[in-house]
């Protein structure tokens, strides 16, 4: 005769059976389940939007940085102090010079200095067509360091700068406005009273989500623009490429000390230049969406909290209402832990379902927001993980007390 086998412990089968019981109970009270879900849906939707905006901001930063022309191993020094992008109109400091640039180039961790002069609202004329655009006075290294290429002709070269030639290179938008389908190379355009010969057209770089048209530009040799447009030799700014990003903190300190010394600033005077790094650019973009993000964070927090309270309340009522059921289950052999798990699973299931719906809603909302605010519409798996985590957490935290209460009922207390 076969000896009686020891009872095998199979937790997985048991867990599945308990989960099935929880789902059955939820199905029986659908209206209630929806009510429990509602808060979680709103909370997780807000959370999803926040995370997506954060991710999108980072992406936009990278694009904006590339438009400034620097990656993580570079920084930008601009004339004039004060906050980034908040220069007072009319102030036109002329204190950053080519000599400053050369002094900075002396540091051994500096790979390259790319100087530029920038003038906004320059009118370029060709025949009876006009285009208002941004003028860049640059050297050869400007396009090389950004990896920008020309579509036709050539970019400004060293000879142009050395001989102060009256030549220019057009951005794609400017070329289209002034020349339509024609090939502009070899033709002439006028700025002010001076004519410049077009030697090349840049390849299109596209428009940023923030509305910056990277092709709405005209490039002149730095020497020509100093002499004929600006009538002074000081720079608007220059980009500094470092050998490696690990020198960034050192470089920030060194450059500031050097420039303050060269500009003979007293210790109580503010900087008359600004050093821009990628971190500051990120700050600016976050500032743009900060109020929205902050509001959504409140909504997420409050609605998750409220939904937790709602779930707890409804589950407490359910425990009271289902006393008899609990009693029956206990009588036929459910342990306290079985009852605890069963009720806990109910609230966790509801919250997770709410989380999933919230994710879908959040995704939709974010698509709309990304259209209204100019940020790229990108969803990441991060929001999926966060949604799952927070909804499960809500369900667990709010369900644990009712479930505990249910498990404490003795079989007879629960039965009529």
């Amino acid at each position, binding site marked *: 005769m076969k000896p*009686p086998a020891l*009872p095998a412990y199979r937790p997985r089968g048991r867990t599945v*059976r308990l989960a099935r019981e929880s789902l059955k109970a939820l199905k029986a009270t659908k209206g209630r389940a929806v009510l429990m879900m509602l808060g979680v849906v709103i909370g997780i939707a807000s959370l999803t939007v926040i995370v997506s905006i954060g991710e999108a901001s980072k992406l936009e930063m990278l694009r904006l940085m590339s438009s400034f022309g620097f990656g993580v191993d570079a920084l930008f020094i601009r004339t004039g102090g004060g906050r980034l992008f908040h220069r007072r109109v009319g102030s036109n400091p002329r204190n950053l010079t080519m000599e400053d640039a050369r002094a900075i180039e002396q540091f051994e961790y500096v790979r390259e200095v790319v100087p530029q002069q920038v003038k906004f609202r320059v009118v370029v004329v060709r025949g009876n067509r006009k285009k208002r655009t941004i003028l860049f006075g640059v050297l050869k290294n400007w396009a090389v360091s950004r990896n920008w290429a020309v579509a036709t002709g050539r970019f400004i070269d060293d000879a142009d700068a050395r001989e102060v030639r009256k030549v220019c290179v057009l951005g794609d938008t400017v070329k289209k406005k002034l020349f339509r389908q024609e090939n502009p190379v070899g033709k002439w355009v006028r700025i002010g009273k001076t004519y410049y010969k077009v030697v090349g057209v840049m390849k299109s770089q596209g428009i940023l989500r923030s509305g910056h048209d990277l092709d709405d530009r005209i490039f002149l040799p730095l020497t020509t623009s100093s002499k004929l447009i600006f009538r002074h030799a000081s720079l608007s700014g220059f980009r500094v490429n470092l050998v490696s990003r690990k020198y960034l903190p050192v470089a920030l300190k060194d450059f500031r000390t050097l420039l303050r010394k060269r500009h003979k600033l007293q210790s109580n005077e503010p900087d008359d230049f600004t050093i821009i790094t990628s971190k500051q650019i990120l700050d600016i973009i976050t500032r743009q969406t900060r109020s929205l993000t902050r509001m959504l964070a409140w909504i997420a927090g409050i609605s998750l909290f409220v939904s937790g309270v709602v779930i707890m309340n409804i589950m407490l009522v359910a425990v009271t209402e289902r006393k008899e059921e609990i009693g029956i289950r206990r*009588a036929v*052999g459910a342990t306290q832990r079985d009852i605890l798990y069963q009720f806990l699973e109910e609230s966790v299931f509801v919250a997770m379902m709410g989380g999933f719906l919230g994710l879908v809603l959040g995704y939709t909302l974010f698509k709309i927001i990304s259209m209204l605010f100019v940020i790229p519409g990108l969803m990441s798996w991060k929001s999926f993980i966060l949604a799952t985590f927070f909804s499960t957490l809500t369900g667990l935290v709010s369900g644990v007390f009712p479930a505990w209460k249910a498990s404490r009922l*003795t079989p007879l207390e629960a039965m009529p």
Partner: protein
Amino acid sequence: MGVTPNAHGLLLNGFRQSVKLYRDNKKLFSSCYSLEIMLIKLENITKTFVSGKVETPVLHGIDLEINRREFCAITGPSGTGKSTLMHILGLLEPPTSGRYFLDGEDVTVLNDNQQSRIRNKKFGFVFQSFNLLPRATALENVLLPLVYAEPYPRNAKEKAVRLLERVGLGGRLNYLPGELSGGQKQRVAIARALVNDPDIVFADEPTGNLDKKAGYEIMQIFQELNRQGNTIILVTHEEFIARHAERIIELHYGKIKRETKVTERLDASRELEMMGVK
């Protein structure tokens, strides 16, 4: 085997095997030993309900022995502690003092978890008010004890269907309790009580909410079960129901007044026949 075992290995192996033999057959040996003798033994069980400062003593020192395969009825006037006694026997409620041996093991010292396991493995309950889950079908109700069973029987569903057929509800597997009559509900409850192959079936006034005919039908099932070897403990206040059992334990205000062997035992099938003739 290809390897020659050394003396040490032989000794160890022999020891291991004897331990395994003992472990595997422990339950078999003990059940053989107690096959025809005591299943339940109560020693001086008391129960006092305390609500606030008021103490209500219900049972004063019960000594009781119930044998395997016995069909015994606990009777007495209402408020005398019949149900409380059954709840203590069924591990639904702890006694205030005294000792309770089940299969020779003192179960009063077990914790809640272990007691739940015993209820799940060894007991089946039938209550006066049926106590079925209102939102579960007859079949789901019968399967309920197996949700918590370990291990889960492979043929659980077939077994539940077979039990429902046995109590005459083969055609109503997917009916909700609300769609069944009182007698049918109680039969579902009986099927539920039997699904885990219990050692003991407890029935607390199972016919209390039923008319006479349905009551006899239920008693017929219990008698049939007893004939097949089930131990049944029936709580009732009606004398003619109690006389379906083999032994009647009469309680009187918390004490056992009298234990009598039923001489003229009623047969529910015959009574049903007679009712049919009428």
